């Protein structure tokens, strides 16, 4: 098994764990944690292909990960603000109870 394959398999497993958590858990905060894990799996793929790819001196993979971490931080801030706003509305963070559009 080459090192690149190890990285890619780790990333795929991390993505699958995050996806399972985001699909199975009913708490909105845990769904957000699952999405963060999936984003981290994508970042690991970028770093692995930067490290073992043909032109690492161009730094494109690393720069993409830096910007991706910035976008993930913004996503976490807005997502948690939405969850807090949701909790004020229905006094729950269970996503099964968020089934009306009338506010």
């Amino acid at each position, binding site marked *: 098994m080459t090192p690149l394959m190890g990285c890619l398999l780790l990333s*795929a497993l*991390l993505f699958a764990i995050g996806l399972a958590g985001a699909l199975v858990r*009913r708490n909105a905060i845990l769904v957000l*944690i699952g999405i963060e894990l999936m984003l*981290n799996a994508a970042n690991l793929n970028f770093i692995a292909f930067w490290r073992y790819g043909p032109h690492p001196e161009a730094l494109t993979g690393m*720069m993409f990960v830096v*910007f991706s971490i910035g976008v993930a931080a913004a996503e976490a801030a807005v997502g948690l603000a939405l*969850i807090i*706003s949701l909790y004020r509305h229905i006094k729950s963070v269970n996503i099964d109870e968020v089934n009306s559009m009338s506010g």
Partner: protein
Amino acid sequence: MLFTIFAILTLAGAAAAMSLRNLVHSVLALIVAFGGLAVVYLLLGAQFVGFAQVLVYIGAVAILIVFAILLTRSADTASSSIGGSWVAGGVTALAVFGVLAWAISHSSASHGAAMPQPEASMQQIGDALMLRFALPLEMIGLLLTAALIGAVTIASREKRGPR
């Protein structure tokens, strides 16, 4: 060898974060997973990204999630249980992993020769950020400002009374 240890640590942390019942324990396991991933970045020669991972994910995102858990008082309620559709979710995740693993093991890209460790000094990263990636850097600054204002607006709307 070191890579295997930290890969297992990362996966164990992620699995624990997704399966523990108490949400605070969940976030602690998530911090373990993020830390293991940061060490994997360091092993791959991406020092800057590794430390950015520690600062942003462990330092900011995990703390933000803890704040959200405490503000919504959902650490020990029954709402953190596993829903009824867990078989469908698990089967979907397993199928996605199966497809990904099949593609990885059959791809010609993952059988390439081992490359020497590329060097990414701080000076190269700074040059790239200030010259070639200057426009994306400005846009990420704009996006973070907009997200900051948006998050504060969304989270504090109810205090001004009924709409």
